[in-house]
């Protein structure tokens, strides 16, 4: 069977990007880091090509890290292998709507 590959950019990252098609609940993916080390994950959710999964438990309000930097905060608790995208990740920048709530 063809191996499903996901890439982790830096060691600090808690998400990896899947470059494989037809990934659904229960699919197995191999996460490769930049040294070529491999770790297997079971996917939770239907994840399109080029989308992300969590590599560790991420609690609501915790930072999501890719490229070694924060790309947003979790809006729900996220389990390892779970699909991470706009449904459970919130941008923290350019948020005029937050200012309005605070003001």
């Amino acid at each position: 069977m063809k191996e499903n590959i996901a890439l982790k950019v830096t060691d600090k990252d808690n998400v990896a990007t899947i470059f494989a098609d037809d990934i659904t609940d229960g699919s197995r993916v191999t996460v490769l880091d930049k040294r070529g080390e491999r770790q297997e994950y079971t996917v939770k959710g239907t994840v399109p090509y080029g989308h992300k999964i969590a590599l560790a438990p991420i609690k609501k309000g915790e930072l999501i890290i890719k490229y070694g930097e924060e790309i947003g905060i979790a809006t729900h608790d996220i389990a390892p292998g779970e699909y991470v995208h706009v449904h459970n990740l919130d941008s923290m920048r350019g948020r005029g709507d937050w200012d309005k709530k605070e003001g």
Partner: protein
Amino acid sequence: MEFMGYVRPDGKVGARNLVAVIPSVTCANDVAQAICHQVQGTVPYLHHQGCCQMPPDLDRVTETLISLGKSPNAAAVLIVSLGCEGTDTERLYQEIAATGKPTEIVRIQEIGGVSKAIQRGIDLARKLVIAVSGLQRQAVDISKVVMAIKCGASDTTSGMASNCVIGYVADKLVDLGATVIFGETTEFIGGEHLLARRAVNGQVAQKIYDIVAAMEQRAKAIGCDMRRGQPTPGNIAGGLSSIEEKSLGAIMKSGTKPIQGVLDYPQAITDQKGLWIKDTPGREPEILTGMAATGAQFMCFSTGRGAPQGFPSMPVLKICGNPHTYQRMEEDMDLNAGLIITGEKTIEQVGEEAFAKILRLLEGEMTKNEAIQYFSSIDIHCLGPVI
């Protein structure tokens, strides 16, 4: 290292030998288009500005059009003026003519209407095209290259493949003494600290923070959530979850060299070398115009979802990071960086392919969007309201 280019009277070097037809205001677009339809070797800049704008924006339009006229791929310039525009058309004419390149102007109201202006414009354009058509390329040092870079219709492959290829080429050109310009200030949001760290001094670092803050403030001032516009729906479908993620991937294309300074949107490069930032938005029509105004001979454009657009006088080389998109849109994509994602090639291998294509492009080989003239949607980025 050398390449064969067109040396202009002001010392700049072009990779193309075009006659640029510049409407000084949007109301002159149809005349410019009709002239270019008739006369080969001409390109129009069909923008939508130049009247009923606040004074700083009118200056911005005048200065951007001057820079476009001065850009070295334009061998000669024909300005099409309506006559009552807000753009400073006299300054536009004088400053372009001062570079020593043949410059002409046709005025629609003064000559007695559209059809007369088209007729006069065709005659002037024909004269200009014939005058420059015999110019020969000469060998010049590679340090005369000004490369613009951008990513558009990005997905998650952009930051991991095609932007890395552009970063490789950017580093190589800077090492050869050339100039590289990147922009898309919106896409510094979330990664500005990484760029500021690469600034040559504290002043440049502060300027980077300032332009990002100003861009974010413009978005926040509307009192809504920027996520409706950035990342774009296409970016989100491609797997980019936030502006921060898009920015961090976008920054990869700037390579690793020190950042020498920040250029304003209308500003042209004089003889600055190395890696520079230009304060531009991310949207294609406005950033491509801003980058062409810099005087870039060409642009390297990274895409994941498949953005086909080019620019009238600046060949745009499409480097596609997504192997699926490359397969579907090969006719619009110049290079396949998707082979990095599939593990078939390294960043360096595709980077060297890109560099070889760039050398051919500089000497006249066309890009795909250039060959089919997919480049009419351009515009000048203004800040204030239309009034």
